[in-house]
Structures are given as structure tokens and as C-alpha cells.
């Protein structure tokens, strides 16, 4: 772990020097070019700042334009910024994507374990040997991730509804932690009896922070849903910029540096997908009477 961190630092310094050369020569020619504003949400471990910085430098270097990550702690804030034309690109959850379809365009979908898919995990405390599914959680305290999260809100509610209950009355108390990581924490500490989390985040945390995930147990998994996509703002991003970004992302696995960043992010690469990838999400939304913007 320590060696990995050292290696990261070396990589980081390497990236920095690359960036320095870039900022002297090519950046001058793009001097007037505006900074690319890239929104990130708790759809992944957005609080791992060193990884994000590496990725930012990588993107800046390969696009030849300054990239800035705009971090927000709730999906809602990032969504608002997209609505207000304040972002060029964003990595958002699939559920908000469907709601913002008319503003954003699907750019790439990350490949997680080789596929552009992930699931919702129902987690309980490790010491809870009784709970086997949502039915056992009636009248308990439940932690949701974010009201605009698929795996952390939409999917569990859909499951409860499928079981024949109104999600609103099913639990004694529910609360949002605004991040998947904190859902795991809330369950591990015992503040909530159970919680719904992103499989990608739980799995990533298991390798980064096994002592935290070790305090929880996955009792149920949802079916596969389309992975949170990277989207481009329809208005702010022209075609050239769209494809440039798409290409840089798609090419990441083919560069050593890109490969390393992908490993740190727990991803295999990026892919171009159709909207139909999110049909399961759209189905769940429809069940709650929510339309997907077209």
C-alpha cells in the first residue's frame, strides 16, 4: 500500500512535469481557450483527491486544454449546475442522466469489471445474522445515499414496491447520507439497520478500506443497471470537443498513465453505449410515475 502510494506520488510528479512543459508550450497557443469544467458527484469515490488530480492532469495533457473538476457533495447540486449551463462534462448517476437527457448527451460509459453495468447492494451490519432481504427490514432504520441515486434510492424503493409495500411507510425512519461511502459508515456504526449502496463503490472500498466494508454484509443485490455515465452538455460542448473528450477517455487503457489512473479508479476503461442501456432504470422510474426527459 505504501509502495503504491509512493509510486502514485512519482506518477503524480511525472504528470506535473508533463503539465509544466505543456503549460509553457502548447498551452500558450490555447491561451484564449476556456477551461473545461468537469462535474463529479458521489457516483464514485469523488473524495479521493489525489486520484482525481492525476486524472485531471491526464485529461488536461491529452486534450490540450485546462480541465477543472467541479466537486459537489450531492447529486442535486451537480444537476443544478448542468441545468444552469455551468458544466461542460459531468460524471453523474444514471438516474439523474435520464432526467437530464434533454440537456446532456451520453459521452461514454465506464467499464466496470469489463461491463458497463453495476448493481445496488443491500448491506446490513456484519453482526446482523438475521436479515436476508428487504422484507426483514420492515419498521427498521434505513440509510439511503442520495435522492437522485439509482442504486442508493431508486432501486431499493423499487424493490420494496415490488414486494407490495409503499416505500414511504415501509421503514420506521430513513435518512440520506449524500454519499454511498457514508451509507456503509452509517450501517457499520449502527445508526441505520441497513442501507442501499452502489456495488462499484462498495467493491472499490473493499480494496481501499477493508476495515470499513468488513463491518457490513451484503444480503441482497439488484439486477444489473447501466453504469453511471459521463455526459456532455448539449449546449456547452460542440462536436469537436465532444469527440475529443470521448477519444481521450476511450484511449485511456492504451496509455500507461491512463491505465494506472483507471486502476486507481477501479475501472477497466470506457465504452460508447446506447440509451437502451438504461432501460431498466427508466422502467423503475416509470413505476414511480417519473418520466424520463426525451
Amino acid at each position, binding site marked *: 500500500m505504501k509502495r503504491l502510494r509512493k509510486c502514485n506520488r512519482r506518477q503524480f510528479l511525472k504528470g506535473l512535469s508533463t503539465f509544466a512543459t505543456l503549460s509553457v508550450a502548447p498551452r500558450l497557443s490555447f491561451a484564449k481557450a476556456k477551461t473545461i469544467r468537469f462535474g463529479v458527484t458521489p457516483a464514485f469515490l469523488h473524495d479521493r483527491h489525489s486520484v482525481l488530480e492525476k486524472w485531471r492532469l491526464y485529461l488536461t495533457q491529452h486534450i490540450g486544454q485546462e480541465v477543472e473538476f467541479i466537486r459537489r457533495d450531492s447529486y442535486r447540486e451537480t444537476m443544478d449546475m448542468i441545468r444552469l449551463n455551468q458544466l461542460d462534462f459531468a460524471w453523474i448517476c444514471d438516474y439523474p442522466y435520464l432526467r437530464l437527457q434533454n440537456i446532456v448527451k451520453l459521452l461514454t460509459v465506464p467499464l466496470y469489471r469489463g461491463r458497463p453495468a453495476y448493481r445496488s447492494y443491500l448491506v446490513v451490519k456484519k453482526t446482523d445474522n438475521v436479515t436476508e432481504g428487504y422484507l426483514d427490514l420492515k419498521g427498521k*432504520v434505513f440509510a439511503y445515499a442520495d435522492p437522485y441515486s439509482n442504486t442508493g434510492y431508486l432501486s431499493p424503493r423499487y424493490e420494496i414496491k415490488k414486494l407490495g409495500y409503499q416505500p414511504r411507510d415501509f421503514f420506521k*425512519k430513513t435518512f*440520506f447520507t449524500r454519499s454511498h461511502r457514508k451509507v456503509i459508515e452509517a450501517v457499520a*456504526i449502527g*445508526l441505520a439497520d441497513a442501507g442501499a449502496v452502489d456495488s462499484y463503490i462498495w467493491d472499490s472500498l473493499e480494496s481501499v478500506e477493508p476495515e470499513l466494508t468488513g463491518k457490513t454484509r451484503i444480503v441482497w443485490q439488484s439486477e444489473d443497471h447501466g453504469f453511471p455515465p459521463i455526459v456532455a452538455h448539449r449546449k456547452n460542448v460542440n462536436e469537436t470537443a465532444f469527440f475529443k473528450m470521448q477519444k481521450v477517455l476511450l484511449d485511456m487503457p492504451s496509455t500507461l498513465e491512463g491505465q494506472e489512473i483507471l486502476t486507481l479508479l477501479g475501472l477497466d476503461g470506457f465504452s460508447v453505449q446506447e440509451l437502451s442501456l438504461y432501460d431498466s432504470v427508466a422502467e423503475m422510474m416509470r413505476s414511480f410515475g417519473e418520466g424520463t426527459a426525451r
Partner: protein
Amino acid sequence: MIHRIFDLSLQQKIPLWGAILILFSTLSVSGVLMYRAYVDLKDALITSSVGLGQTLSNTLAPPLLRDDTWRAFEIIRAPFLNEARNTVIRPDTILVVSPENKVVVSSRPEAFPLLDELDQFKSDFAPFSTPDVVFSIREPRIFETNEPGFIYVALPIEDGDLFMGVLILRHPKQVLLESFQKTATGGALFGFIVLAILLPINWYWGQRMAVPLITLARHMKNMGSAPPETLESGLYSYNDEMGQMFEAYNAMVETLKEKAILEKEMVASERLAAMGRLTAGIAHEVNNPLAGMLTALDTIKRRGGLDERTQKTMGLLERGLVQIRETVGALLVEARPSKRWIEAGDFEDIHTLVQHTLKTKQVDFQLETDIPGQLPYPAGAIRQVSLNLIQNAIEAASHASNGWVHACACKTSDGFSIKVTNNGNPIPVDRFEHLFEPFVSYQNGGHGLGLWVTYQLVSQLNGHIDVRNEQDTVEFCVLLPYPKDKLNS
């Protein structure tokens, strides 16, 4: 029992009382300080807890208003994140309670789960078992329980005039006590060090006080049975009240000794005076019939016609009677009023008289006189007294190698003094008492009447005779006051 303690010797009592006082004061001072330390610690805890609580309650209002349980939890969990922080001041549990007495959020959600009624945790939150109490908390309040021991700091969480609940910070007294115990242990250790220094000093001081007093007490106790003794010097060398007391004791012993000597002298002189009167009386009584008998014998002898045998018997009787008269006469000392007064020439005569003896005994003699003209003392008596003393001195000095005698007859401011000193053997102390009695002689060939006669003569002249052993010398000193009837002339 208590009386027995008071009866103890000062040697034990002074250190004992000192030790009791030292222990009492050390214990009481440290007790008060420790109590103060505990109260201060508790006050610091409450002050800090109220400060923390106020910050938390202000921060908690917005998330509670939004029903953001997770944010509220993050806020109350914050004080526990830093392990290194002072655990004494840190509460063990922080709880937010709704006005309905339900747990809104707690720092230990497993022990106190969300929405549980607070009265379920009676032993943990005893003071808040009824909603009335929670509802009444509109300013920071402190609650305390003893079994189990907890201190609770309760603060309202309000947004404007909306009362959203109560924030409770619970502190176990055990942590407070443990922290206090550390302080107390340090204090006790210091106390022991102080005692370890003070108690030996107290013991030493007690001994210093007690030993001289005990010695004094022993001396005073023995005073009845034995002659008093002065305290050895250096027993207590300071001039405080105790030192003054020892000095006064020594002065008293000296006075007593002098008094005892004086008493002895008085008894001796009383006895000598009584003897003088007795012998004088006897002598007078004997002298009258004796004179009659001698006259009768003389008459018979003058008549004649006695046969030879009777004459022989008469002669025997007469000689016997004459011897009796002489002996009685010697006892009957009388300083007859002299026809003339003493003058320097009388001592020159004495010098001449003893020349022969001096030569025989090979004793050096010096005579010193200071008699201007005549002095109103009977020359006969003074001559006899001086001669007796000088002859005795020559006899005593003759036994010493290079024997010498020194005599001094001088007029003094209030009378006349005769001092005779010799370097003969000192007179044994046990002889002093009977030295001036008749028929007491310590010299070969003496009849024991010389000093008796001297004493009687001096007494009749209202004088005083004194004898003392000086270093290697013996001195006889006669002091004669100026005769009263001559004072005016």
C-alpha cells in the same frame, strides 16, 4: 487512657504531639486542596462541556430542521473522532432528544438507537425519564446521578422560537475520579515527602526540648534525697526562657549549697558556744570548792604536826587539786580586759618568740603587719590568738619540704584581720566540723586546746574565725570587727 497519654514523658510526648499536629495539618491541608482540585476539575469539565454543547446545539439546528439525521450524526460524532483529545473533558455519549423524549440521534447508535424512547434507558439517562424534564430545558442545565455516577449537560436546540429538542452530553464520573486520583496520588506522594522531612525534624526538635527538661526534672526530683547538683554546662546553650530556667536552677543550687554550708557553720558555732558556756559553768562550779579545798590543805599544812605519811598524802592531794585547777583554768578562757591595746610591737615580740621553733623545724616565716599606732583590741588575747595560729602553722609546715608560713596582721576598713597561711598538708574536710572543739588534736603532742582557746577568744571579741584549704596551702583567717564601744572614738 487519655490521662496515661498525658502522663507520658516529654521525650515521647513532645514528638508525639508534634507528629499528631504535623499529620493533622498535612492531612487537613491536603484534604482541602484535594477537595478543591476535585471541584475545580468538575467545574472545568462542566464549563468545557457547556461550551462544546453550545457549539454543537447551534450547529445541529439546521440539519435537524431539514431532518438530516446523517449530518446531525456527523456533528455529534465530531468530538469523538480525535482519539488523542483529553478524555476527561470529552463526554462518553452525546444524544439529541426530541421534545417527545425520543432519540433523534446519538453518538452511540447501537446503544441508543434512533427513535427509541429515552425512558427505556432509565439507568443511563435517569434525569430525563419524563418528557416534562426534556421539555423544560430552555437553557443549559446540569444534572447529576450517583448510582451509576454521571454528569449530564443538557442544552436546548432551538431555531428562533422553535424548540427542536435537547442535546445531552453525558460524562461518566468514573473518568473524572480517575483523573482526580492521578492528581491525588501526586498530592499524596508530595504529602509523604513533606511528612518524611517534617517528622524526623520534629523528633529531633522534641529530643532537643525534652532531654534538658528531663535532666532538670531528674535533678529536681533528687533534690530532697541528695545534695543538689548543678546542671552540666552545654546542656542547653540558648538564652530563651528554657535557658533562663536552667540558669536560674543553677543559681538556686549554688544558693542552696552556700546555705547548707552556712547552716553547718552555724550549727558548729552554736555547739562551740554551748560548749564554751558549759565549760565556763563547770569551771566556775569546780573552782569554788577547789579553792576551798586548797585553802583547807594549806591551813592543815601550816598548822604542822603532821606525820610523814600524812604529809605525803597531803602533798599528793595538793598536787592533784592544783592539776585540776590548771586544767579547769585552761578551759576557762577569758579575754580579760587588757591593760593596753595591741600595737605593731606585739607582733615583733611574737616573731621573736617563734624564732627558736622556726629554726628547729626549718620553716621559713614571713610576717606582715599594718597596724598604725594602737588598735582597740586587748593585746593579750590578740597575742595569744596569733601565737597559737602561727605555732600550729609552723608545726603543719614542718611536714612539707621547703615549708613556709606567712602571717599578716592588718587593719581593715571595718576592723582587724589576722591571716596565717602555710604550705602544709590540707586539712581533711571531715575534720573541719570538730576542728575548734576542745581536746581535739590532730597533731602529735598537742593537747587539743590551742584552737579551742583561739576560738573562744575570737568569739568573745565578737570576731569570726575561718579556715579553708586553698591550692596547696591552708589558711586561717580571723576577722575582728571594730569594737562597738570604741566606734565613736
